[in-house]
């Protein structure tokens, strides 16, 4: 059944696909945005859940380039506990190769005189300190894992802010960080703090190991 591409069922499904794509294909120098759903259909699979088939435009946000159309399928399970199953097709040829930039970032952070530590990225005014953009994107990719895993037809997640990041120096093969992020769910309007242990290197991409939803604080996040 076709559904309106501009209304919320399609846009929530698209957002969950966006999280999936960034977690699986993104890097600190390669971030994707999905926008402008052109066509959307909804299929009810009895006993399983709802499947959305979407066609939308895709953009490489870091290089500010349109990279063509994304065709995706996302299945939301009716138990609302299993992570949505996503399949997608898009043209990898259009996407700028970020290997050199990723390697440079890896080397730079591996050789810092002291473990990196920062908080509130962006700050209250939307400002990101020079040199911190990739740290922010790395946190975003890790948050994409959490957001994808927790998406349902009743949620619409975005990363509101990186509350804190602390580099942990354990291995020469990976960069490791302890991130606490603030997720924003547009549907409930809640701000959800989430802590993640994040590992990354240019070859193997991102891994979110230990992670935990943190309690909502009464005042300051």
């Amino acid at each position, binding site marked *: 059944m076709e559904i*309106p591409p*501009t*209304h*919320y069922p399609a*846009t929530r499904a698209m*957002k969950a696909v966006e999280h999936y794509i960034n977690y699986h294909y993104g890097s600190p120098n390669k971030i994707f*945005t999905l*926008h*402008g759903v052109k066509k959307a259909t909804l299929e009810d699979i009895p006993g399983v859940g709802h499947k959305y088939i979407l066609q939308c435009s895709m953009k490489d*946000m870091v290089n500010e380039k349109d990279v063509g159309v994304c065709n995706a399928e996302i299945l939301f399970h009716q138990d609302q506990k299993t992570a949505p199953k996503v399949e997608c097709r898009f043209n990898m040829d259009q996407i700028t190769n970020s290997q050199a930039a990723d390697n440079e970032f890896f080397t730079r952070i591996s050789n810092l005189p002291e473990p990196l530590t920062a908080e509130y990225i*962006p*700050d*209250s*005014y*939307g*400002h990101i300190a020079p040199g911190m953009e990739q740290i922010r994107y790395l946190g975003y990719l890790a948050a994409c894992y959490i957001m994808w895993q927790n998406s349902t037809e009743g949620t619409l997640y*975005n*990363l*509101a*802010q990186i509350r804190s990041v602390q580099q942990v120096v354990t291995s020469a093969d990976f960069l490791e960080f302890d991130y606490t992020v*603030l997720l*924003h769910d*547009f*549907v*409930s*309007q*809640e*701000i959800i703090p989430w802590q993640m242990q994040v590992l990354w290197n240019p070859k193997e991409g991102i891994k979110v190991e230990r992670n935990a939803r943190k309690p*909502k604080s*009464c*005042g*300051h*996040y």
Partner: protein
Amino acid sequence: MMLCILALIATASAGPWGQLFKGEKVFRVQPKNEEQVKIIATLTTLVQLDFWKPESSSQISPNMVVDFHAAVDEASFVQYFLRKSGIEYEVLIDDLQMAIEKQLDSQYSGYNHSYEKYNTWDKVAAWTAEMASTYSSLVTREEIGNSYKGRPMYVLKLGKSSTSKKTAFIECGIHAREWISPAFCQWFVNEAVRTYETDKTMNRLLSKMTIYVLPVFNVDGYVYTWTNNRMWRKNLGESPSRYCTGTDLNRNFNVSWCSVGASKSPCSETYCGSSPESEIETKNVVTFIRKHISTMKTYISVHSYSQLLMFPYAFTYDHVANYKILNTIAEKAVRQLTSLYNTAYRYGAVAETIYPAAGASLDWAYDEGIKYAFVFELRDTGRYGFLLPESEIKPTCKETMVAVKYILNYVLLQ
């Protein structure tokens, strides 16, 4: 030392005193020996130099760091002379005027209101007074009541005529963390007064209509986002919970109150309050709108984020009676908006576009009889979300302005 000097000059050159130091340069030299000291002394006889360090050329000695300022006409000669004499130099400041202005910006941004920055509540409050006093023939300031914590809720009344047949209301900042919203209301007022003489549409709007602007609906919440929690949404009203505070003002209006998309839990971000209009801020706006209801034709509520232009209803999927016309207006307003910077906007009735939610100001305004009611969700779509960079304030406000003017003008011409 440098900053102090700049500050001293800044006080002399600020604002209307203009471009006193445009193109002037500050040089640094370090004479290596007595011979070079003598050469610099010679230079001072050829051109007028203003010594910053030391205070006068007579105090220069070998290996001392010497800074001096040269006028525009002299600067190129100075460079030629120093080069010819084999004295190494550094241009510390390439354009003194620019350096001063930059310093002024960063030094005084703490005190000055800016349309391209996020302003504290104190600055917004002071700005409302300033607008009313500077543009007294077009702007009056009214106090429509206090917030829960006793802060004044200011409304600016824009328009030439004291008895307009049509009025409009624009409210910003009902949700504290949506900072781009109050920024837009301030921008709107400034554009209105700034272009009243020169822009035909604005002139018509302000001559034939009265536009009320509430730049910060949720004053206490807004202050709280500056002092305690940047992600706060609700007001600071009392709640039955010991641990949680605040009501979502946009769930507190009396239209199918708390039936859907709102929470009865005081700890929730969409807590609808203890009863409809339980919050003083809600009551103040309700009272004000009802006072002007016989002439009020347009209600615009400004939020962020998501890039949407929507119309009632939020509390139900049922279409309003004039759904078709509101949809057409929204479509055209969005087309105008997008034409500026290609910013993609979606439009539609609230419930089907984002979610059903009861108790919204928009629905209440519509049911009171204001048939042209719209709600904006401004930039962006989640990349920065509530933390929209200040560099985006200007383009966001410019594109939104176009859409709002379209709506106001459409209704005026009805």
